[in-house]
């Protein structure tokens, strides 16, 4: 090779890897994977300027670099801090970081309506995951939760401001993907809200992607509203020839009906190829699409509780990090729901799943 790039050695939770200079701690940790990767509620690798706000990704830097091995006095936002050569980072091995994260989860939840039973995001909500993984039981908050005046932002996108965690991702999407940003954050402090200044519909092409980047149920798909729980649907990779975008999507089927169309998300829940509004909102027939096959779903997701053959096993890093301590299982859906009996194997159902398939009569023991 003509040019040898100098790589930086960084140790995160006792695991050492080499990364390119300019890599953030978060992305280095994602290379290791598993629980070593801090949770990220506001950072989004494809959105410039994102990150630094939610503070869930705080980690402890036990040594800044080989050249300057002093520890950093405060926890740092791993999504916005670059690694240095010889840096030593503690995430799940840091009591301080875990405690701070518990605090952050509590802060994010005190004004959250906790209306998961009627929220379309339930089952694929990052705040739910975060709370199960990093939160404490119960709340110490005893006051009225914050409410907002309702804003109608048009025929495609439903806004529930009470659920918003102000991650600013949707603002970056509008800034970076659409012709013109029509919404933003108004007001200040705990009164901040997502809104258009004068009630206005969000109709720009590509604006539908705000739904996919929104970590919570603050922005959901109006054309899918209340139609189904996501874990009853069968996600499949599909594509079509689209003049505007790559046309590579995930279809969420039940029977022949396409309930909704989303962009494809990677293992960190991030969209790498954003899709246009037409693909998302207008192509709701199976015939519109060429089906590629079942979407690979993380084993941790409630959606995968339908028992796919093809689920992605997360890399087990914990034994290396925690000296034998076991990772915790988020939630076994079978304990709380009737519908996902182990007897149902979505991968083995020919074609899309029907409600009949979930009928307890038909379930093999």
């Amino acid at each position, binding site marked *: 090779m003509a040019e040898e790039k100098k790589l930086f050695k960084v140790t995160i939770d006792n695991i050492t890897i080499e990364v390119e200079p300019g890599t953030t701690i978060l992305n280095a940790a994602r290379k290791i994977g598993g629980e070593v990767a801090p949770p990220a509620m506001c950072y989004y690798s494809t959105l410039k300027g994102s990150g*630094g*706000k939610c*503070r869930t990704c705080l980690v402890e830097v036990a040594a800044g670099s080989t050249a300057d091995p002093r520890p950093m006095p405060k926890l740092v936002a791993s999504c916005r801090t670059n690694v240095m050569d010889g840096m030593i980072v503690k995430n799940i091995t840091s009591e301080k970081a875990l405690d701070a994260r518990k605090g952050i989860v509590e802060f994010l939840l005190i004004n959250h309506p906790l209306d998961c039973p009627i929220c379309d995001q339930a089952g694929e909500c990052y705040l739910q995951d975060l709370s199960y993984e990093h939160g404490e039981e119960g709340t110490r908050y005893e006051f009225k939760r914050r409410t907002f005046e309702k804003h109608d932002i048009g025929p495609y996108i439903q806004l529930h401001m009470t659920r918003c965690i102000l991650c600013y991702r949707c603002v970056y999407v509008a800034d970076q993907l659409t012709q013109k940003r029509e919404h933003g954050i108004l007001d*200040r402090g705990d009164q901040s809200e997502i809104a258009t200044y004068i009630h206005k519909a969000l109709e720009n092409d590509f604006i539908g992607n705000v739904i996919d980047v929104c970590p919570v149920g603050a922005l959901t798909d109006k054309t899918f509203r209340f139609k189904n729980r996501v874990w009853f649907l069968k996600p499949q990779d599909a594509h079509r020839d689209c003049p505007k975008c790559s046309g590579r999507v995930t279809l969420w089927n039940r029977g022949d009906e396409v309930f909704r169309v989303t962009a494809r998300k990677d293992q960190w829940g991030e969209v790498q190829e954003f899709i246009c509004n037409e693909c998302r909102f207008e192509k709701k027939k199976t015939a519109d699409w060429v089906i590629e096959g079942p979407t690979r779903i993380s084993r941790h997701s409630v959606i995968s509780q339908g028992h796919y053959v093809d689920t992605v096993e997360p890399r087990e890093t914990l034994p290396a990090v925690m000296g034998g301590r076991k990772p915790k299982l988020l939630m076994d859906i079978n304990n709380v729901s009737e519908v996902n009996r182990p007897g149902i194997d979505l991968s083995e159902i020919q074609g899309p799943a029907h409600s009949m398939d979930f009928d307890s009569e038909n379930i093999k023991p």
Partner: protein
Amino acid sequence: MGRKLLLEKAQVEGIRNYDVYRREGGYRSVEKAFKEMSPDQITDEVKKSGLRGRGGAGFPAGMKWSFIAKPEGVPRHLVCNADESEPGTFKDRFLMEFIPHLLIEGLIVSSYALGSHLTYIYIRGEYSWIIDILETAIGEAKSNGWLGENILGTGFNLEIYIHRGAGAYICGEETALLESLEGKRGLPRIKPPFPAVKGVWDRPTVVNNVETLAAVVPIILMGGEEYAKIGVGKSTGTKLISACGNINKPGVYEIDMTISVEDFIYSDEYCGGIANGKKLKACIPGGSSVPILPANLLLKTAKGEKRIMNYESLSDGGFAKGSMMGSGGFIVLDEDQCVVKHTYTLARFYRHESCGQCSPCREGTGWMEKILKNIETGKGKMSDIDLLWDIQRRIEGNTICPLGDAAAWPVAAAIRHFRDEFEWHILNPEESQIRNYGLAHYADPLEPAVAAV
């Protein structure tokens, strides 16, 4: 008694006008700097002077100047932080209102040192009349050849523009200030990069407080070493203190940092003692963000030494037993003041001023305010005190900008030193609505400290 460097001439009749200011020796530092010194020499003098930032954090000004990046072909800027919105702090207002040319003079010399051809004064919007005063001063300076093109024939060009804020405390935080200056929402930036590398419009920028930049004038005139001889240790030069609260003579005082807190409160030259013959209960020595101290810990440190009005002595004892110089807003509370109510008032302020960008500050400040309101109105529970402690603990250090810390510290300090009073409020919900806890034991002599906590 104390030596005055900034406000010495502030009371001279007509000093606000250029002619009087010039006659009294104004703009000599510009002549000296432009004719006898190179930009680097000026920075060196400021370094030697030991001048520390007067905006709150106390970062050495000369060092900050030397960090400024100098990429080829990229303009650099100096920004004067005149946003002064911290409750209890009103020293910059006094300086700009009474002796505006001193700031302009300091800005010219500093801009020359930093190579800024476009310097901004970001001023608190509510100071509307001061904007007029400064505009006039800038106009006068310009028509007398101190601003504009080719100043004093050196080839150095400089314009100073005033930008007014729109009423947000957070725009005093330097990176929020820069965003606001660019015409955006005043949201603090995530650092790094620091302003010295990427400031306003991504250009290298130095942000300094009004008083810091004004102090450059005497430093150039007398030399950095002479300046450093005033004061003690790392507290060099003079400091403006805005004193308020239950004292006989509220106002802005220039002190050299060798005077004791006790003298400052009780001597006739300064605060003139506690008003109405009352007793001193507590004090916030450096603006609303710094920890409150009870009378006994204010006048003497935990080691039993006299507390002096300077950076080191005010912070002696750390957060457990000390406070901070902060921005020099000296707020005195007498025996009739209620610490719970006072803490609630501050919590309300910080909740209102949080920009809302990061979760701990956005949510935590509101939560603390609500709990404090309950305690204040007789609806508190004993568990609320520990809850407050836990909330502030989880805000502090975990936010994007120091406003989160500034919201956490007053609550922490109030609970640390005045827990009795919080408990009394909770245990006596009705009585606490009609009378105050009073002086209690907060002025009692302290047991000599055994070991540091």
